[in-house]
């Protein structure tokens, strides 16, 4: 039986997650329970959503450096407007998603590098977040809190949510015709254009979809933390990019894996816990986190090479 490239792409991230999980269970047997798994993974849910959003942008061969600032902004909206007057909150979110679509259009029409545009936008989002919540505070809407702390039978919420996110995005990106177009724009714009599709619409749609997932990420985050501040999710920019790459995606566009991205987000979260259980001093933790990334990427490079050799034979 031939194993497809997509499956091989998934093997490494899944294996690294399993390995890390085994190591954490060995060091901290307490984690091997319903509550333990929930505590290990519940903060990974917003990261997974942000990673999926980043993956969409990367699928069309762009990079979103405003992800962390935008999720922080969404968290602030959730903790203020969405809680106090839901209608206004929803309107703001719709406006934000529309803004994302416009960013996609601007990047496409003016042929600007996405890194520059999104870096600029990150200051806009941060500024709006500070305007809304000058000092930390706000309150999570009851339903968001309920959703994130609910306790489904047998499997903790964090796992259920991750599986749902992975499956939904898998079918949307890998199995639907829209998904093919999105990946097509990242892989080969010309062929999509010649086939008669409007690339500008596809790009705008992809950005809007990314904005939508980032909004969900902000809501999920506030559901966990109960309140927000303007800097709450700044880490998410780099975490989401690392998550996509760790999960088998690539910078060159078109090559992404939604299930892998969710696994990548879980792996990154778990790596943090692993290092903390190992009692590694904070001075070394960023380095150690980087080392884990490099090891996983090196493994993938090796596998890619094997794959190529297989093909050329």
């Amino acid at each position: 039986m031939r194993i497809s490239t997509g499956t091989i792409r998934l093997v490494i991230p899944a294996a690294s997650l399993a390995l890390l999980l085994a190591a954490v269970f060995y060091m901290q047997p307490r984690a091997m329970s319903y509550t333990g798994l929930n505590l290990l993974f519940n903060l990974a849910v917003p990261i997974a959503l942000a990673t999926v959003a980043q993956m969409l942008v990367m699928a069309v061969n762009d990079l979103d450096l405003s992800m962390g600032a935008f999720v922080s902004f969404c968290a602030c909206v959730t903790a203020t407007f969405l809680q106090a007057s839901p209608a206004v909150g929803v309107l703001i979110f719709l406006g934000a998603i529309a803004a994302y679509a416009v960013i996609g259009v601007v990047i496409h029409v003016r042929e600007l590098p996405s890194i520059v545009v999104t870096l600029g936008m990150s200051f806009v989002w941060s500024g709006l977040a500070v305007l809304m919540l000058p000092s930390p505070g706000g309150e999570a809407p009851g339903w968001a809190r309920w959703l994130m702390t609910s306790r489904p039978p047998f499997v903790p919420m964090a796992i259920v949510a991750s599986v749902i996110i992975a499956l939904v995005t898998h079918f949307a990106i890998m199995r639907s015709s829209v998904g093919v177009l999105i990946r097509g724009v990242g892989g080969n714009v010309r062929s999509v254009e010649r086939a008669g599709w409007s690339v500008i619409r596809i790009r705008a749609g992809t950005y809007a979809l990314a904005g939508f997932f980032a909004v969900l990420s902000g809501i999920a985050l506030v559901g966990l933390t109960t309140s927000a501040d303007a800097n709450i999710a700044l880490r998410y920019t780099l975490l989401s990019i690392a998550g996509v790459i760790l999960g088998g995606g690539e910078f060159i566009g078109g090559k992404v894996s939604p299930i892998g991205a969710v696994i990548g987000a879980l792996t990154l979260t778990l790596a943090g816990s692993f290092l903390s259980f190992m009692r590694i001093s904070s001075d070394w933790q960023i380095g150690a986190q980087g080392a884990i990334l490099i090891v996983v990427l090196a493994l993938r490079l090796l596998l890619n090479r094997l794959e190529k050799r297989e093909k050329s034979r």
Partner: protein
Amino acid sequence: MIIRKMLFASVAIACIAGPVSALADTSGKKIALSNNYAGNSWRQAMLTSWDKITKEAVSKKIVAAADPFTTAENQATEQAAQIQNMILQGYDAIVINAASPTALNGAVKEACNAGITVVSFDGIVTEPCAWRIAVDFKAMGESQVEYLAKKLPKGGNLLEIRGLAGVSVDDEIHAGIQAGVRKNPQFKIVGAVNGDWAQDVAQRAVAGILPSLPEITAVVTQGGDGYGAAQAFAAANRPTPTIVMGNREDELVWWKQQKDKNGYETMSVSIAPGVSTLAFWVAQQILDGKQVKKDLVVPFLRIDQGNLETNLAGTQKGGVANVEYSLEDAQKVISAAK
């Protein structure tokens, strides 16, 4: 045979009961420190104090463990994950210096639900189930004006150096200084600049405003800015006013030089990084079953003309004057809050 068994039993009981009755009930408890940042002299001193006091407590078997953890990136989400890991590691109490007063509330709530005692200090959290050890920054600002009122009964013009704009600590100290001036109307604030708690910024800011100011009798500060202000006055060839210091080593050294040269008099006030050890003892007392109010106030560390030398001798180069708290200090703070 029976006698032998009885002997065994009594030895066993002696072994178990002996140490337990001699020690506090917290000898089996584990306490963790969750710290969000370690990148300045104050935080380094805070961690060193924690290490020193808790190692002693562990070796005396007052607690089983007191492990410090610092997050790498000073981010709330990272610290929330760290606290959740501590819950899994089975700590009985978590002492927190928080990256955000509100963004950790979810994780703190999880810890409380797991039966863990949470004590926050310096960077406190608002979650009601946690204890808070806060500094009365307003009183700290007011005490500066009160000192000046005693030293300079005639009053005069004040220059105020503020901290980092938009940070709550800056607002509170400022409010305290204003309240002090209202009570002592012989003083008048004629100018205010932002020194950002850094000597170089303060020096630039003071140098910039000085030409437009009348004679200044005293400078009220927030800490980390007194030395820079003194340099700015010297560079402008103006008489050195009474500058309230903020316990930094460079400030104390300058004060000592002036004191030896011409009998310069002032005072110095700030919070001691050793407040982490106070939080440790409070956590230990709560684990011990003591009734402790949720909101405690930590005294600030004040240095006067008389005890300058002793404090300077105990301050590391480039560091901050420090004091480590003992169990008795913690009990005093706890009973004062009742």
